[in-house]
């Protein structure tokens, strides 16, 4: 039965390649979209993960950084510093800004970090200084690659012309990247506003970040306090919540297209072998066995299509970042498993039509028709 299914599928190699290619691309649509969001997710918390803070303090009710704004009175830093278990408390400024360079604009999360601060410094420096000096900025290498910039060039950040002091890597995603300027430059660009955005906290050795976070929450009013893990998890949740619906819509469209391609492939392969199926029926082979042959064909087509889809997605994951550093594609196991499970259902559905054709097959009539 398995051999018959393979023979049916491979009787015409061109048809097989075309159908596997079609299905592979339809599944690529699903995998690709998921990979973009998984890739963005992997870059989303880079700054939070690498800033060195165990605890993040933000404005009351503000639990995220992405597409959010946090405003705290500058005095909060001192209040946090006095809480037992706090080793370091560093105020940082944060804004979503447009970096302008060579006529292009790039969305960036700009952080203002005090000079010599033990926390909040840019991580993953690939070129230039580790911290920006006065009037300087550290930006992600993806912006430099896109705009043709080098260390020492000028870009507009927060409405000010600033000199590039260095480049970080792997902080950019499809929607933004991380840039760091000096706290004083940021405050000046904001027009001397005394508000800060976050307080980054390092806990004393032996202290639990969760316990210290709870203490800060109890002693300082008007703030939301989260451990690094909680803050990063809220960020991931945000992207998940915002992208879930659109991913579902794309999945439905991709899966439906894939379903049509598999149904067409299996149907064509079955109809082309109609005569042989008629002979099998005339010889007493039961419908159930013929259904199994068709289902096996559908499963094989889907397996090949899925393999093609995965291969194309992996190829794109390797190729795209070479041309666009900020577009990272990550093919997660969860996404692959989900697509594989749905593909099995697709195979089952796609086998229904040809199976119905086989059930209605009249052996003698088919043989007579030739």
């Amino acid at each position, binding site marked *: 039965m398995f051999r018959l299914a393979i023979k049916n599928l491979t009787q015409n190699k061109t048809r097989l390649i075309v159908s596997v290619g*079609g299905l592979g691309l339809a599944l690529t*649509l699903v995998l690709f979209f998921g990979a973009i969001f998984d890739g963005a997710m992997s870059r989303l918390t880079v700054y939070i993960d690498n800033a060195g803070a165990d605890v993040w303090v933000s404005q009351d009710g503000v*639990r995220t950084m992405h597409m959010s704004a946090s405003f705290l009175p500058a005095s909060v830093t001192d209040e946090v510093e006095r809480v037992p278990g706090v080793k370091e408390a560093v105020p940082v400024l944060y804004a979503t800004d*447009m970096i302008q360079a060579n006529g292009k604009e790039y969305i960036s999360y700009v952080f203002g970090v005090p000079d010599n601060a033990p926390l909040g410094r840019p991580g993953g420096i690939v070129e230039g200084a580790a911290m920006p000096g006065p009037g300087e900025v550290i930006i992600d290498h993806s912006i430099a690659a896109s705009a043709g910039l080098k260390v020492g060039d000028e870009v507009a950040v927060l409405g000010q012309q600033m000199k590039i002091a260095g480049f970080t890597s792997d902080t950019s995603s499809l929607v933004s990247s991380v840039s760091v300027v000096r706290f004083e430059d940021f405050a000046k660009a904001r027009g001397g506003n005394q*508000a800060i955005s976050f307080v980054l906290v390092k806990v004393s050795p032996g202290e639990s970040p969760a316990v210290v976070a709870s203490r800060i929450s109890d002693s300082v009013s008007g703030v939301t306090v989260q451990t690094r893990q909680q803050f990063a998890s809220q960020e991931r949740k945000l992207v998940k*919540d*915002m992208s879930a619906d*659109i991913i579902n819509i794309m999945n439905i*469209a991709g899966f439906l297209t894939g379903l*049509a391609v598999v149904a067409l492939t299996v149907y064509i392969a079955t109809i082309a072998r109609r005569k042989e199926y008629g002979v099998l029926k005339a010889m007493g082979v039961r419908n159930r066995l013929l259904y199994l042959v068709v289902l096996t064909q559908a499963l094989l087509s889907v397996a090949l299509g899925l393999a093609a889809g995965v291969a194309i997605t992996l190829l794109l994951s390797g190729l795209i970042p070479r041309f666009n550093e900020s577009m990272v594609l990550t093919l997660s196991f969860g996404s692959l498993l989900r697509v594989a499970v749905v593909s099995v259902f697709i195979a089952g559905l796609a086998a229904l039509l040809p199976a119905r054709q086989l059930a209605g097959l009249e052996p003698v009539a088919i043989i007579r028709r030739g």
Partner: protein
Amino acid sequence: MSLVGLSAGPAPRLALQNLLQDKLRLVLSVVGIALAVMLILFLLGLRAGVFERAKAYLANTPGSVAVLPQGVKSSLAAGSGEYLAAGTAETIARTPGVARTIPVLEARAMPEFHGKKESVLLIGYDPALGGGAWDLAEGREPAADNEIVLDRVLADRHNFAVGDTFEISGLALKVVGLSNGTSSLSGSYVFVRKSLVEKLVLSPGAVSAVLVTASPVTAPEDLATALRQSLPGANVLLKSQVMANDQEIMAGIIDQIIVLMVGAAFIVGALVVGLVLYTATIERRSEYGILKAIGARGGVLYRVTISQAFAAAGLGVLTGIGFAYLMGWLVETFKPQFPVSIEPSAIAITVGAGLLMAMLGALVPARTVVSLAPAEVFRR
């Protein structure tokens, strides 16, 4: 029958017969092409919808000139804490040729309702000057600092009604109105009094942008030039330019994805056309062989194949356009935060893509037909 005469009439008929010999296969192939076309058109519609909503506030708020903080060229960075210098709004109002000014203060927030995070852009405005919701579906404008006008889609998703309490950034606000056309892929607009946002961002008197209406006798371009001279620390642009900048930035983000996905959908469509034609051609190989044996030229057989391709792709494209409208309607009905705007230009692109799909899909089958050796076919 003269086979020279096959070129005009019988070629399309033969093509149609070939396609119709198996109706179920034709239906499956039309559906396959239609789904690929639908995906292309839907993605383009989604893109247009995103652009439309990204510009919605500016498009619907009076004013032809926008005064923004220095270095700010688009409204997408609004709400991130960059403000105009104190007294800017007053300077603008005093400038000759200014008929109306609308100062707004924006702030982004990410509240969570029913376990789901929602991106909102708080528009702080003075109801006496304008700049609030342009299409109030229900209720009224905020009259006090503890009142808010919510986007209707956001309210529906989380069962908020006029009179309910909405919590944001640690504040409990009373919902006094619901607005239409204020939701998008990237979040929803909510409207509050400017004085409330000033408290939230700890900046009394702060202004993110001023929208300026020129007097009837002043050209917006002239007013922009005059304002640039009187406001050296601000960025003065025509509102249309800010909207164009917004679209350009959004395009920079989403076009990378859209182009790749449209490309993949296009290839899927071409492969479906190719698959169907190839099968139809192989099945009728002996008939083609006979035609060749009795003198049919390659051009005639090409035309048969191409006619089939165009017929299948044409049906697929038409069905796909219908599917796209259906999908757009379904998405807008059940997920109204994703506006889908199917524009005539997108339909034209899709029809062009469908024709190209047909041409590409017909390549291999056409070559197969033309390279058929008549005697070989009979021998098989």
